[in-house]
């Protein structure tokens, strides 16, 4: 009892430090979405009136919208009234006390990925010191960042500490009524990250989830804003290669990036949420709106994603290339196994002169997985000398899977140059034979070939992530061969 009390105190202390929730009692709003729920969320978070107005505006728009059905995915209808839209972090007593209480399957995966014990505990949500360790590490990092003038905090904190910045940029890239899930997110978002890199600053470290100070249980409606002022640059890493404990089925995140003149933002994602079991029961629905706005000249936004988790993925990280000479990039590896479905791709909207974009998408479909690349390259009449290169390749493993490509191109300027290439094939028998003849097992051979297939994307990932991403593919493909 005393121990529990102590722990709760510690949690209280930690939350206080983060400064956005003082009430730690595990507390959830009753399921259902109404103006009342939104007012409750806003009140709980002690938000200013303008933010509440923003939420309500989004909610009213959302009510008038219909759920999109154009994506090439199938799932039972979501009951938005059955979801609880606010829940405070789980108290420590609900968490497993040690790794012995954690699902052995999960532990096995951690081992295969080579994740250190401490991190395993953190990822599995074990209520031990490691969590607090991460807080202390986070605090040190925060000091370094503060010295450089970089703001990196939770969005709730930013609302209080830097309201003028949040007010200026929130909804400026993804408007509150942009699409069904973005509107929902705008109405009920609970947390997420806020990054601001001031003029001429190169962020001194990669902002990564591993030491994320602000991201325990951000919940299902994450809102992230990253702003790079003139000449600034930042590399942001989201997610984690390890499967994460997660109770929420619907995830509808919104990420907004703003790059001013000569700024560079690199956003990397590794997503490995619960994909459901072999029969497709359970699993996360990941409906995400991510968009970057190259507002300034020579700005650059680069998206890199490795998507292996979630039952359903619906995600199109996009770039609006508004500034002259700005650059957009999209590198993606998506893997669907068992009954996973993914409809993912990107949008490159060329507005400014001499804008360039590169799209490299690698899809791997195994088991009964089904995945689509859906991309849009739009060259507006104002985009003189725009250039796009798109390559999307699909690899099929097994006779029951599907791979689809829906690339939209819209060109309104005659000086534009666009190239699109796509191929679909299976792993060649001769390639497999060659590898096996050299003494590799079939599974190793497949994994090697798949990793080679994804090389162009992995090389864009930060080093340590790249290594883990390779292992992750290997683990995710288990059972798909032979």
């Amino acid at each position, binding site marked *: 009892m005393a121990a529990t009390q102590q722990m709760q105190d510690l949690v209280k202390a930690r939350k206080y430090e983060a400064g956005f929730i003082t009430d730690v009692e595990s507390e959830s709003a009753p399921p259902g979405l109404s103006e009342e729920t939104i007012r409750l969320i806003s009140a709980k978070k002690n938000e200013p009136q303008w933010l509440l107005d923003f939420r309500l505006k989004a909610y009213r728009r959302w009510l008038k919208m219909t759920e999109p059905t*154009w994506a090439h995915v199938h799932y039972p209808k979501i009951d938005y009234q059955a979801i609880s839209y606010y829940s405070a972090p789980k108290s420590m007593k609900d968490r497993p006390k040690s790794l012995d209480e954690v699902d052995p399957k999960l532990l096995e995966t951690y081992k295969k990925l080579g994740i250190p014990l401490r991190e395993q505990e953190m990822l599995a949500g074990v209520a031990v010191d490691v969590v607090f360790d991460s807080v202390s590490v986070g605090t040190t990092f925060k000091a370094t960042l503060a010295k450089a003038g970089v703001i990196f905090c939770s969005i709730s904190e930013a609302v209080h500490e830097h309201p003028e910045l949040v007010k200026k940029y929130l909804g400026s890239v993804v408007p509150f009524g942009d699409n069904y899930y973005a509107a929902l997110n705008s109405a009920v978002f609970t947390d997420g990250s806020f990054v601001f890199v001031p003029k001429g600053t190169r962020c001194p470290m990669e902002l990564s989830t591993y030491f994320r100070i602000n991201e325990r249980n951000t919940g299902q409606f994450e809102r992230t804003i990253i702003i790079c002022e003139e000449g600034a640059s930042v590399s942001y890493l989201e997610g984690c290669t390890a499967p994460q404990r997660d109770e929420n089925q619907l995830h509808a995140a919104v990420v907004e990036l703003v790059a001013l003149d000569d700024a560079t933002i690199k956003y990397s994602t590794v997503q490995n949420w619960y994909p459901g079991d072999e029969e497709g029961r359970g699993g996360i629905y990941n409906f995400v709106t991510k968009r970057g706005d190259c507002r300034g000249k020579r700005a650059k936004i680069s998206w890199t994603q490795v998507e292996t988790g979630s039952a359903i993925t619906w995600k199109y990280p996009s770039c609006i290339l508004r500034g002259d000479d700005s650059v957009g990039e999209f590198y993606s590896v998506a893997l669907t196994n068992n009954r996973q479905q993914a409809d993912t791709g990107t949008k490159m909207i060329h507005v400014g002169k001499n804008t360039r974009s590169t799209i490299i998408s690698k899809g791997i479909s195994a088991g009964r997985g089904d995945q689509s690349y859906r991309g849009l390259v739009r060259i507006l*009449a104002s985009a003189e000398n725009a250039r796009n290169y798109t390559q999307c390749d*699909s690899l*099929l*493993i*097994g*006779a*029951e*899977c*599907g*791979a*689809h*490509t*829906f*690339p*939209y*191109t*819209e*060109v*309104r*300027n*005659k*000086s*534009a*140059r*666009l*190239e*699109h*290439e*796509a*191929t*679909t*094939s*299976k792993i060649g028998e001769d390639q497999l034979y060659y590898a096996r003849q050299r003494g590799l097992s079939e599974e190793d051979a497949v994994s090697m070939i798949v990793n080679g297939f994804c090389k162009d994307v992995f090389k864009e990932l930060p080093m340590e992530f790249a290594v883990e991403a390779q292992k992750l593919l290997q683990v995710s493909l288990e059972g798909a061969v032979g």
Partner: protein
Amino acid sequence: MSASLAYLQVWQQLPEALRAQRDAVWRHFEQHGFPRVSEEDWRYTDLSALNDADYAADASVSITTPAALAGWQRLVFCNGERIEGAVQAPQATLADDGITALNAALCRDGLNLHVGRGQQSAPLHLLTLDSGRTMSHLRHRVVLEAGSEATLLIDTRGDDSATLTTSVLEVEIGANAHLRLLRIQDIGTSATDLSRTQIRVARDARVEYVGLDLGGALVRHDLNVQLAEPGAQAQVHGVFAPSGRSHVDTHTRILHQAPHTTSREIYRGLVGGRAHAVFNGRIVVEKAAQKTDSEQNLASLLLSPGAEINAKPELEIYADDVKCAHGATCGQLDDMAIYYLRSRGLDADTARNLLLFAFAHDVLAHVIDDAARQEMERRLASRLPGSAAYEGLMEGLIA
């Protein structure tokens, strides 16, 4: 129902017995109307103007019938009625959207070609001429029995009046049979042409399609090829070269349903003036269609500042042992190539047109029949900027 009275009037002029027979398709049209831009397949092509368009029941024809192609039989339809040639009109069967339903309800004539087992039919030039503020609806049906062979050119022309033409061509190609299908689409600048071509290809049979779409206020062609049995092959090639304020929309769908089916698709686009070109090439490989081999290639050039192209090469694959590739590019003529030709003494216009012509020739070279190919080349050349003389271009090519 928002569709204009014009359609109802034509419907009511049909004989009572025919109306009773076609009641279901007419009601389908009344219910659904024309497809809307909210439908994915129509997002770039807006037919809403057709809903309150006004058409005369009859109009005088002001086009002169062009000279016949050497060695070809000819069948000529004018404003939906046959004026040359004699074949019996087919029954309308296909009606799965507003346009095909309207066509099925209102068609009065069309080609009904049946080629018997192992036979070879003479090449047939099917010419459609439309004129005046009028509508024409034609329904064609072509059946090739096993081992037979046929060549068919569907040629649609018109004057500058705002005609509406719908046509539906249903084709059945029997085992081991071979169809060469050509299309020239060259209607007037105010005219609308909505056409559907539906082809089913049986075991080891082959269809070779080459199309040339030159213009019209609004042109839409849906070309669906169903490779239904093992060994079926399709070659689907086309050029679209709209200019002025034309809107040309091409949708191709190649459906691989059986193992060992092959498809090749090459499209070239030359978009000039303030024209708007839409290309949607879809390849679907069903689960049963293992060992499918499919390639699709689209290249387009925007020739002027106001031109626009929307292209979408789609792949939808449900089988794993397949080879599928597609590529799409959009760009402009290579300045170095123009410079090279000019350094050889060609003037700027000729150099440019020669390159454009050669670009389109990747497709037109697939037309085997000389008379038909020359006809297509001539028509394309007449539409190139600066209206290059075809003979001059050919000289350039030879030199």
